């Protein structure tokens, strides 16, 4: 196997980044350990829990399953882009307890909030089903998501 580093360029939270990555490096590790964005968490490392969710071209993506080079030319948005004001509703609703799931939950929730047309076909519990949480029982998560007015969560 060819192990030569690959040079990539991608947008990270609105900033252009250029770096070299190992062909087998996971996007999760590159974010956490090479470009100092440790907010994204690793839970299972096998695509089941969603703790590592980032937005890749706007779609929630398990960064533990994505080779970093696949971010080439694309747009990555991580929890580092989120301000406390963005999540004030979550803070009040009890969306987080231990916090292990929270960075991923927040990213999927932002995708759901940004795409309200999805709610015509799916309910919030389905949209959030890719993010496991062991602490909240999910009500705190669902209640923390800002729906377009007129839509009720449960």
């Amino acid at each position: 196997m060819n192990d030569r580093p690959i040079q990539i360029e991608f947008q990270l939270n609105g900033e252009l980044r250029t770096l070299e990555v190992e062909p087998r490096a996971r996007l999760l590790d590159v974010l956490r350990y090479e470009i100092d964005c440790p907010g994204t968490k690793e839970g299972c490392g096998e695509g089941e829990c969603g703790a590592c969710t980032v937005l890749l071209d706007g779609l929630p993506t398990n960064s533990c399953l994505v080779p970093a080079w696949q971010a080439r030319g694309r747009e990555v948005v991580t929890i580092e882009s989120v301000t406390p004001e963005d999540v004030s509703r979550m803070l009040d609703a009890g969306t987080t307890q231990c916090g292990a799931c929270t960075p991923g939950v927040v990213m999927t929730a932002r995708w759901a909030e940004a795409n309200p047309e999805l709610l015509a076909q799916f309910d919030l519990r389905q949209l959030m089903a890719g993010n496991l949480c062991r602490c909240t029982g999910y009500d705190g998560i669902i209640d923390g998501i800002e729906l377009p007015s007129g839509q009720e969560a449960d």
Partner: protein
Amino acid sequence: MVVGKILDNACTDLATQVGDRALRGTALRDAIREWHRSHPDEELVAEAEYERPPGVVWDDDNYRGAACGAFAWAAYLAEVEVDLRTYSARCTAFHSVQEIGHVINETLARGQIQGGIVRGIGWALFEECRLRDGAMINNQLTNYIIPTSADVPPIDVVFLENPYADGALGAKGIGELPLDGPAPAVANAVADALGVEPLDIPLTPERLMQLVEGVGT
């Protein structure tokens, strides 16, 4: 809250030794420094032990009496749906009433209870630790199934306020409480729906099929 109180009592002992039992914070720190200056080479030691609330008696030799001053209480009501072709069971509604003394922070208390209940629902329907040679063999999220947001209904929690005089700010503990009752409630609901008597959980489709059709073991 027991340990916190012991620490607080030890601090009171310390404060008393350095002059004033009400001292706390930087004032206590300064008084301790002062004490060391005027007692060179001496040690300042404070102690405190757990003290049972009056009337709570426990006999540790015979394991009799009241181990706790007060218990928290809860009631659970589960509604389930079972698909008679696939035998998959689903919890469609869940209600609970909790008496945990005084509720100090309602959002956190509710979240703790809801989280415990969802774990209980998972235990009733999906979660099975398979063991072999002293180790768990399904110890990954690919083969140990826990509930997602789509697998559980909203969890309704009602609190009954009943402040406990000997608890911190009137509270009782709630750590384990929400995990104990939900799985039996879900299992009873499945029993009621199917007219079977489940004795093991989780009530996976395989188990339910065996119970209803009497096949396999």
